[in-house]
């Protein structure tokens, strides 16, 4: 994997709208954003409604993912080109999710919706309909997903990367500051975790920094290349952004995303917490 395999520029995206074999997919936290205007021909994935189990806290299962992609008109052979708001947090989450279910060709639009809008590029309100497909997912690839027990067992041994803001890391606030600060979980972080905020990997327009800048960033922060890595945040979306940087852009081996993240860890009884 290299940057060109996994990341496309807004220019490239604009030139390739409507190209057969490419499906542009918008994934947002604010799912009304798509309805206000989207890339021409792009379909919408609702981070919550489409990608989370309606009952338990978990992903939709393989069969539900197959049904979802089939209904959206995405086939196994298509290259899925993801973009979204929040500096691509949820698009990166979807990227990781598509990889978990074994989709071959997935790319992110660098800068996502934000760069697109700041550039003043065209958005469409047309209803997008694609003919249904018969999508087949693979079994979940758990080599890229960490669960709580592994996180606890990794304290002091693996690279634990807490990608939240410094104030969340220290426990001063419990959620990114666009959300009310009323949560059940305790504040703080997993002992021995390093705080390398996702935002250090991005430019102000939402694009990723250069490979050289990214390599220097993790190097300076004490990332140990000889160790396996688990990234986490609050609910697993910002850590998907960092997972994408570490695994897909920098090509580091054995990087997992802990999607349970702080909402789970900070609610566990008896686990160690540092502030």
């Amino acid at each position, binding site marked *: 994997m290299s940057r060109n395999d996994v990341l496309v520029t807004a220019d490239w995206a604009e030139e390739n709208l409507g190209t057969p074999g490419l499906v542009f997919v918008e994934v947002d936290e604010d799912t009304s954003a798509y309805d206000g205007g989207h890339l021409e021909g792009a379909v919408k994935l609702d981070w919550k409604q489409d990608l989370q189990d309606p009952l338990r806290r978990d992903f939709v299962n393989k069969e539900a993912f197959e049904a979802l992609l089939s209904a959206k008109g995405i086939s196994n052979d298509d290259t899925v080109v993801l973009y979204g708001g929040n*500096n691509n947090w949820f698009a990166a989450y979807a990227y990781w999710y598509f990889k978990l279910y074994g989709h071959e060709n997935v790319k992110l639009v660098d800068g996502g919706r934000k760069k697109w809008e700041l550039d003043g590029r065209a958005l469409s309100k047309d209803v997008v309909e694609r003919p249904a497909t018969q999508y087949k997912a693979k079994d979940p690839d758990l080599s890229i997903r960490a669960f709580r027990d592994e996180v606890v067992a990794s304290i002091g041994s693996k690279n634990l990367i807490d990608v939240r*803001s410094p104030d969340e890391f220290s426990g001063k*606030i419990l959620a*990114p*500051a*666009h959300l*009310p*600060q009323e949560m059940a979980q305790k504040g703080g972080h997993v002992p021995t975790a390093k705080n390398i*905020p996702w935002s250090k990997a991005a430019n102000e327009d939402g694009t990723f920094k250069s490979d050289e800048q990214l390599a220097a960033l993790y190097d300076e922060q004490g990332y140990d290349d000889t160790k396996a890595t688990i990234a986490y945040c609050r609910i697993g979306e910002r850590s998907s952004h960092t997972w994408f940087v570490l695994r897909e852009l920098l090509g580091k081996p054995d990087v997992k995303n802990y999607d349970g993240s702080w909402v789970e860890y900070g609610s566990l009884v008896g686990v160690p917490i540092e502030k």
Partner: protein
Amino acid sequence: MCGAPTQGGSLAGIDLTTQTVIQGSVWHDGAPLAGAYVRLLDATDEFTAEVVTSPEGEFRFFAAPGNWKVRALAPVGRGERGLAAEVGLNETTVVIG
């Protein structure tokens, strides 16, 4: 839990005895600016959150007492404003020149 809240509007349901709300609007050319990207930076200038202004140009953050910076980015330019927030409502205006 994770739907991005609509920006601006009523403060009903928000407990201002516990929440540190930083809100206001972005202005450009004498009018509120919709669709601007507004980010909240902490005392070390690190990113804490980002929202997009409402049709009325409004933004709202839930922070903690302390020093913050609000920075707005839009196709027409950028502007920023520092503030010291306390528990309760803290209002500010960011002008993009």
